[in-house]
Structure formats: C-alpha cells, structure tokens
C-alpha cells in the first residue's frame, strides 16, 4: 500500500500557493494536515499530479481575536485548538468538540482548515462551524471572500471552494456570556466516526432559549442545520417539546451505513438532542 508517484510543491506564502493552484489545477490536491489525504494516497484511491503542501506557510496558522471574531488560521492544528485559552474563552463549543476527533497523534497533525475543506459528512468541525455561524475565509486569484459555513458545505464532500482558491481561515463570532453551547455524539468507539452527532449554540435570556442553532453530523451528505426543530424547541422551551423532536427526522437526510441504518441515525439524533437540552434545563 504505497502511494502513487506525484509531484509536490511547497510554497511558503499564500500568494505562492495560489499561484501553484492556478498553474497546476485541476489535477492538484492541497496537502494540509494530510490525515485523510495521505491515507487515500497510500491506498491509491486518489492520484493527483501535484500536491501543494501548505504546511510551510506560516501565515496560515494562529488563533487571534479580530474585533468581534475569533480568527483561526486554516493550518492551525487541532491540538492547538484543544489547548488554546482563546478558543476555550471565545469558542467553547470548539473546545468541547476537539477531543472527540480521532486520537492525539492525529490531532497533533490534523488542521481545522483541512477538516473543513475536506467536508466529510461525519466530521465534527463542519457541523460545529455551522452551529456557530462561522465564516469560511477563502482566498483566490481575485482576492479574499467570506462565506457562511452553512453555505460553504454543499453536499457530500462538496464545498464552495473552487480549485484555484485556498481556505485560509475560519472566523467565529466571539461567544457572548449569555450564550450556551452543547455537543453530543455517539460513536461505537472513542474517536471513530460518530453514528450521529449534534452541535448546539443558543442565546439565553430570562430562562428562554433564543436563536437556537442545531447542526448535525453524519445524518446527511454534509452538516445539517435543523432550523424548524430549533425554532420549535425555542417556542416550546420550558414545556414539552417531544412533538417537535418527532419532526426532526424530516429535516435530516441520513443514509444507511455499516454501523447504523438511516432510521437508527434519526433516532439517535433525537436522543442526543434531548439529552443535550436536558443538560441546559
């Protein structure tokens, strides 16, 4: 199981990386943390002519607060998010989610940008960004653009990133002290792809939930934002919202896989949501 031959470019700046993309596209693959790409190369499931290794671009790493946003460079390793006081303070949901991603050696290398650009439907970070109303920062030949996470993810492994663009950063609105965050997932083993999971973010005022956002993972081709269920729960907060949860299935689009049927995923999504909300009561 050895990877096929390819060429590799190791740009040192974002502009150089963009130039490489422009020059070699479409048969390129951007090598970020490589924790998914390298495995598929070893298995010869993908065969790009040119790898663009962006690990040498210092400008792509780092966590900072820019006005009311927490800005995370695309190449920031998951382990840095796990231990960052800035993330813990301003994006506590991210801190909650990271320990559920794979294992320590993977998080030491895996990056936030890689996970988001890859858009695996079972990944935690895409759903997390959708729940948090994160903005994905893309840079291309025509400059920088920002796109809301929920629009960035467009389907099974499909995103709004085009083949001459680079995902450079993620911006997350700084958490307010009135906000609440929750995360639940159910995997058969620690660190595995979850059978279903939910990221939740909500504002909170006089014992009422406001603007609840529920973003689910592995119950659709990408992260799924369940808007009707979320608003139904807000309306019924403090009362019985079982009926609202019953409708959750119609917002999700799971398929069968080896670990759970689509019915089971919907069932688990409901259970996880209820348990998450019970924590808030």
């Amino acid at each position, binding site marked *: 199981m*050895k990877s096929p031959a390819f060429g590799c470019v190791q740009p040192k700046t974002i502009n150089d990386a963009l130039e490489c993309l422009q020059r070699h596209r479409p048969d390129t693959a951007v090598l970020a943390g490589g924790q998914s790409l390298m495995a598929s190369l070893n298995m*010869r499931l993908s065969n790009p002519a040119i790898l663009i290794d962006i690990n040498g671009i210092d400008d792509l790493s780092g966590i900072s607060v820019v006005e009311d946003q927490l800005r995370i460079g695309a190449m920031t390793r998951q382990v840095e998010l796990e231990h960052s006081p800035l993330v813990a303070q301003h994006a506590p949901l991210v801190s909650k989610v990271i320990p559920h991603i794979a294992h320590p050696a993977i998080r030491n290398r895996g990056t936030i940008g890689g996970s988001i650009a890859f858009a695996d439907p079972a990944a935690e970070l895409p759903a997390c960004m959708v729940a948090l109303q994160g903005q994905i920062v893309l840079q291309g030949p025509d400059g920088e653009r920002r796109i809301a996470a929920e629009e960035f993810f467009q389907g099974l492994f499909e995103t709004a990133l085009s083949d001459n663009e680079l995902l450079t950063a993620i911006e997350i609105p700084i958490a307010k002290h009135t906000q609440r965050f929750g995360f639940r997932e159910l995997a058969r*083993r620690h660190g*595995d792809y979850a059978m279903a999971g939910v990221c939740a973010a909500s504002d909170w005022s006089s014992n009422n939930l406001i603007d609840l956002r529920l973003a689910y993972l592995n119950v659709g081709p990408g992260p799924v934002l369940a808007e009707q269920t979320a608003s139904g729960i807000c309306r019924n907060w403090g009362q019985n919202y079982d009926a609202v949860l019953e409708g959750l299935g119609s917002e999700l689009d799971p398929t069968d896989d080896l670990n*759970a049927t689509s019915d*089971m995923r919907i069932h688990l999504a409901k*259970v996880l949501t209820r348990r998450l909300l019970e924590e808030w009561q």
Partner: protein
Amino acid sequence: MTTHSRDRWVLDRPNSYIGRSVPRPNAKRLLEGRGNFVDDIVLPRMLHVVFVRSPYAHAQILSIDTTAAQTYRGVIAVVTGAQLAERHKPWVGVLKHLQGIVSPPQYAIAVEKACWQGEAVVAILAKTRAEGEDAAEAVKIQWQELPIVADAQTALDPDTPVIHDSLENNLCWERNFAAGDVDQAFETAAVVVEETFDIGRHTGVTVEPRSIVADYQPGENKLTVYQSTQAPHMMQNVFAKHLGLDEGDVRVVTKDVGGSFGIKVHVYADEFATVALSRMFQRPIKFIADRLESFVTDIHARDHLVKARMAVSKGGTIQALDFDDLTGIGPYSMYPRTSGIEANQIVNLTGGAYQIENYRATTKVVFQNKNVMCQYRAVGHPVACMIAEGLIDEAARQLRMDPVEIRRLNLYPDDGYPCKSVTGMAFENLSHHQSLDKLLDMMDYDSLRQEQADLQKRGVYRGIGLATFIEVTNPSPMFYGVGGAAISAQDGCTLRLDAKGNVFCATGVTEQGQGTETIIAQIVATSVGVAMEKVRVITGDTEVTPYGGGTWASRGCGIAGEAAGQAGRVLRDNILDVASVILQTEVDALDIQNGNVVDSVDGNVLTTLDEVARVAYYRPDTFPEDFQSELVVTRHYVPRDYPFAFTNGIQASYLEVDIETGLIRLLKHWCVEDCGTVINPQLVDEQIRGGIVQGLGAALFEHCIYDTEGQLQNGTMADYLVPMAAELPDIDCAHVVSMTGSSELGAKGAGEAGTAGAPAAVMNALNDALTPFNARVTAVPLTPQKVLEALGIL
C-alpha cells in the same frame, strides 16, 4: 503413565522459578524498538512481490495482458498463475479423520478463475513495493463474472451453482452426532428453550501483517524462508513437498512475530507463491501483506449459524441438547489443517461442562465465494460456549432460577473425575465448582446483584453474565497427525551446557509474545539448577531447534515445557556425573543449585558449573578412560494418556446498556481458570486477558461484513472495529490449580481460555440487562442497532 505427585520432580526443586512472575528477558529489546520482524530483513538482490488481486468474488480469467506492466520502472518480472502452476504442486486441504471432507486442489496463484475477492491472480516482482504497485495498475485482465455463492444458508440449495466443477456440490464436510434418546427427552421435558445463535465472521488483525522473505540459493539448491509463522517445521514440510525440494534443503527461520492468534499457522497461497517465485527467479523475495490485503486474505473465523434447543426439567436439570450448525468457509478448505476443525470442535465441545446424556449435533461446512476461513484462537470454543451458556441462561430465566444455581446443578462434580462427556471427550480432572465459587467470591456476586437491582429502579440497566467453559489444550496427534497431516504433536528440547556454565536451550515451539522463551527458561533453570540469566533460549529455526509442532492450540507450555523440564533433569544428571568424577563423590550425594554443584544434604557448595564445564571441555584428559561427559541432551514429549488436556474456567461480565441508544459499556470482567501448574502467573494472566479481549471484540465489534455479492464491505482498520483501550474494562483473573498427571510439570494450556468464554459472558450479561424488556440478542457482534431492534425501538 499418569504421574503422581511424588514424581513431580521439577516442581520440588530448590530455587524454583515455577510459579514466579519473572519478567521476560526478551521483552527488553522489543521495548527499545530492537525487535527483528520479517519486514526488517533486507537481503542482497531482494525483490518485492506485489499481487494483483481479483476484485470479483467469482470470475473466470479470460485473458491477462502484462506487456505494459513489464515495461514499468523497477519491474523485473510479471508472473501469472498459469506460469507459476508449472513450478509447484497444488495442495488439497483435507484430513483423513474428518471423514468425507473434500476440497479442490488450490494453486499459489489463481489459474483459471478467481474464487474470492482478494485472491491473487498475477504477481509482479519489482525492486520496490511502490514500483510493483505502479505496475499492478497496468496489468490488464479480462474477466467474465460467474454466479456468486455468498450466503452459506443457500449454498446447498439445488438451484445454487456449484463453485468447483470437480465437486458434486458446495458441501465441504458434514458431521452428525447423536447419543441417548434426544426426542424422548424433549417430549417429556418441563421446559424447552430454543435459540438461533448467529456468530459473525471475524478475523485476527495481527498488528504485524503476514510477512515472508524467501531466499533460494541455486548453488546449494537451498531454500531459506524467513517467515512470521507459528509452525516453522510444518512450513518446512509444506515448502519442500510442494516445490519438490528435499526437506533437508529447506530452512524456515522465525524471528519476532508481531501477533499470530492462529492467523499465522496456515499455508497462505500468496506466501507460498512468494517462496515459489524465489525459487523461480533464484533471488530473495519479500512479501508483506498490506492492511487491505490482510482483510481479504488473512483467514477469517467463526461465521456460524446455529439453531439450538435445550430440554430442562422442572428442577433445572439439563435433559437434552440438540443443535444444527452451519458454517461457510470460503472457496477452499485451508491447507494443511482444513477448515473443518472448528465445526468439529463445536460438535465435540458444546455443553462439555455439563452432565448431559442426550445429545444431538449436526454441522455442515459449505463452500462459498468469500475469503477463506480457518482456525483462529479458541477454535470452535466461543461458539460452543455461546450455545450452551446462552441456552442454560434462558432456561434459568424461564424457571426463575439464578444462573449460578442452574449451573451448579448441572456442572460435572469436582470429585467425579476422570470421566467422559457425552461426545467422548475425556476429562482428567476439572474444577468447575471450585472455579465457580472462586469467581462468585472475586466478583462479590450477591452485592453486584443488589447493585444491579437498585440501579434498575433508577432506570439504569446493568447485566451480569456468566459463562462456564472448557478448553482443549496440549493436543496429542488426535488433532491433526491422525488425519495424515505433517504437523508434529510432540515437541523437543535440546540443552547444552557451554564452557562457562551457561545453558543453551533450543525448543521446537515459537515465541509470539506469550512469553514462551521465558517459561521455557524458567523450567530449564529450575530443573538444571541454574539462575535464569544463565539460560539462553533459541526458538524458530528448523535448522537448529528440535523437530516440533510450534505454537498453537495452547500447547507451548504443557508440551514443550515438559520436554524442557525432562531435558533439564537429564542434563543435571549428566553434569552431576561429571562432577562426581571430578569430586570423586557418589552422584547421589550431589545436587545443582544456583549454578553450583552442592552437597545434596547440607547444600554446601562443592564446585561450580563453569568449573565442571571447564574440565569437561578443556581437560577431559583428566577423566578415567571409560568416562565420557555428555553435556548436550535432547528430550521429546507428547501427551499419551489423554488426547487433550482439558482445562476449565468461568468468566463473568458486568455491563451497562443504554436502552435509548443501544450502546453497551463494559464495566468489569472476571475470569477464573484452571490450567494446572502455573509456571509464570503474570504471563498466564496476560494470556487470559489478551484472550478475553479478543472475545470481547467478537462480542461487541468485530465483524467481516460481506454484501450479497461476496464483497467485503469493511476491509480497513477504520471500518473493521476491534476493541480499543477506551472501550475495555479492567479484567480480574484468578486460578484454580488441577495439575495434569500426564506430565511431571502438570501444566495445561491457557492461551485460548479467555477467547472461549468472553463472547458468551457478554451476551448473557446483555440479555440479563434486557430482561425487564423481555428482549434478547443472540447474534454477535452485539451492535447498538441490534439492541435497539430487540427493544422494539427500531
């Protein structure tokens, strides 16, 4: 032949290492990354072989075009099955004592058609593995798909196509056994419980994949094979036989083995191809199965569907047991052990802990277009255990008896040995009741039941599951030899005292991490009378070690250990003969302790072993003319008075099931087992723990999932789930000691006990937890999906 305790000479030795948890001397280099695994071997002119494998479960090879592949950089040759078939004799995986078993001839590389997804069809020899894989993509094969036999349940239907033209149907073997009046017993029984047990296919997943380097030297017509295997002498025989070489010209060397569990005791077509290719091209060739290859070519195991019923009296006495077993073994019976042994074991062993008079069992072993299936750790035992333990628990539930009480009532009494089970298994001395009592004590059974009841009131569902088991260990030739296989049941040990008082020990068994070398050294050190550091153990080299069977079926300690003990006793005698000449003393007045020759009465040191050796080797001229020192001895051992040394034990699982998600959390696991004399308690416990965890894997996670077209669906490490650290409980072990009288040492095996009982214990614990819901799951792995389905949620 039975040895009485007064003859247990080794056990009574001064400064004994028997029963001591001595750390393994050979573990240190492994801890420093200085192991010597096959993939670490690099030989001059060595090539790598890459196999192009069939993507189809069953397909005719219409044509193979290798012209493009041959032009690739680094490629030396591309060889098809037809080309290689001219260079070796095919094999047939049958044994005489499995009456009626059939299997077609199998070649190293598929010749006319591929019979499972993953079967090798073309071999590429290249300078690097990567270059070989590049060329593999350029091999063009024209396939014609053939009808696929995937489902074992329909494999024998008249309208199912027959896989092999040379056979009448897809039946490999069947066995029917009956004793007593089963029908009468069921008619009159107060309670009849019935279950279908579905035991999923799983596999071993050794972290070191199957690995081999073959080095044929034309000058001497000599073949040296470095192989990660459990049975070097068996492999030597097979390579010689099927390549037409003299067995004396074949040497198999086995250094460190990165896990085996029964996976590495079989003859794999691709490994044999590697050896045949080395002979064909007259240079060293390496094959290391990559992980994707492992999942579709390492033997799979289990895959049994069992319909079973048990008749029980009102008082809880088992009156009859009756079951039909069906297993699918892939397209070939594996060579040379066959793929019928697991089914045979299930017929032999089911319910073997209990006094059952009326018993009927049938098993059918069928061919199908899936990866080959064969013996893996605890062959047949976990299935046998699930049948009996699952049924007895269900009977207890219906009779409102405690699972402990119903077992107590039916287990063979501890004072009733020797005796024979209904299937003719001879039990020398087992300890079911003592083991059960010890287990209940260790787990504090009554408190646990109380805790379970208290928690249930708060909506927390926990379950306790018990599983009694017996284990086949120390097999005599009744296992394989009697069926005509060149698999040695005996094992030998050669000891040599060197000139500095060190003892070199060569044994026919191999080390795969169990601690074989350590326990052999402990036994030798004890029986000779030297410190363990003075004993050097050599394993895994057919040119150096005595002929032996290798390490499988929990035989290393009981058989090779006994040979080592006996050899040590003789070497000690021979050393004392020399010492008595030097010291001018009667032999009876001497003993060896701590490397010194001592006065056997007061223990005073009279001389040292290196002094004895010095005189023997450098100054034999000082001996009387009629005296010759003999400081190399060899002894062999094979159990004779029992076909197998049965062991017994019992396990318990405590778990919690989340009734909303179906997720099972293992809280604790216990095992009491009786392997006779315990040489090294720590090593035995770790064998038990490791075995249990493979059983827990079978219980909860491990499953080779195939689709209806014979395609493996989860052939990666990410998708084939094995239990990891975070999913596992702590495991407590304890022992009862009932020594076998067949040997001085009295040791039986322990390597498979854990795997035998764990799945049944977990299944019973789950069903105990689900009792309030009147729900049951009897198909392993016990997945959350199955739990929710049983609960009626899905």
